[in-house]
């Protein structure tokens, strides 16, 4: 057997036996589906955003530093100026109030494990307390 074949077998063995958490995989699949449905129109399929209108999610420092706010804005929306990678954005983002804690966790897991970042699973049980921490928008009169 040539060296190349031995290399291939080793690679296959390592990848087949590496512990890919089935729960993480499930979150990623469902998260991607929800991302395409609710987020990709503006933030684009590849997470790059659109010029200075919609901020990028891929390689975003804002995303990295603001998990609670990211979760809250997905459900309740976000208004006003934000700075992402040194650029100011000011396009109101409508929330999707119908998203459940599990769905928010799935989308977050997808965002935080795509486009070059690997943060691992964001469990649905973490979402409840995070949502409690954010100020909900006042009902319109």
């Amino acid at each position, binding site marked *: 057997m040539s060296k190349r074949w031995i290399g291939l077998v080793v690679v296959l063995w390592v990848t087949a036996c590496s512990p890919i958490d089935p729960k993480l995989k499930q979150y990623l699949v469902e998260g991607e589906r929800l991302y395409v449905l609710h987020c990709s*129109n*503006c933030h*684009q399929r590849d997470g790059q955003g*659109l*010029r*200075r*209108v*919609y901020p990028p999610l891929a390689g975003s420092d804002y995303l990295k530093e603001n998990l609670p706010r990211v979760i809250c804005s997905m459900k309740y929306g976000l208004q006003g100026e934000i700075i992402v990678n040194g650029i100011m*954005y*000011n*396009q*109101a*983002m*409508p929330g999707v109030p119908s998203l459940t804690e599990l769905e928010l966790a799935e989308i977050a897991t997808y965002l935080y494990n795509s486009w070059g970042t690997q943060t691992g699973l964001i469990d649905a049980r973490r979402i409840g307390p995070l949502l409690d921490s954010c100020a909900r928008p006042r009902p319109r009169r």
Partner: protein
Amino acid sequence: MKYTKEMRLHWTKWVWLALMAIGCTGLDKPLPILGPREVDGADTLYHTIAPFRFVDQDSAVVTNADFTGKIYVADFFFTSCRTICPIMKTQMLRVYEATTEMPDVLLLSHTIDPEWDTVALLHDYAERLGVESRRWHFVTGQKDSIYKIAQTSYFATAMEDRSEPDGFIHSGAFLLIDRRGRIRGKYDGTKEEEVNRLIGDLKRLRRE
């Protein structure tokens, strides 16, 4: 009979000539003129875009006169829309980029939510997209006039509907208008292939 090399050459020559002829007629075939038409004696009167008067992102008044002798692409959108508009704007940006070297081609985006989309907001939006107002006008005006011109001139759907998640229903259509204000093509502005076709048709229309 023996099949010689000369015979094969003879054949291929004719096939090439035929292909070229078909190809050329395909290119030269003019784009259709869309919409209802009236025949008045020997003349055919085609549907044209009705006179309009809107205000763009620079507070400049924009009327038909600004588009006379120009080819333009029109659409209907609103800045707070989260459904199809962002995709339409991504695609319209492609048209913008493809027409950089074409001073006779303009873009005209109408907001269907003039109450929210003020001149200041449209100005900020265009600036954030990084586009020049000289080539791409974002216009606002009386809500009724915008809806009316959408439906009766461009045959595009645009109306308020409180039951929709964003409060409006509208089509994602891009309309290609010629130098005489006639509709020469209708494309789905949310589909990349359709917009490729639009860019091709635009080039054909310029040669007319």
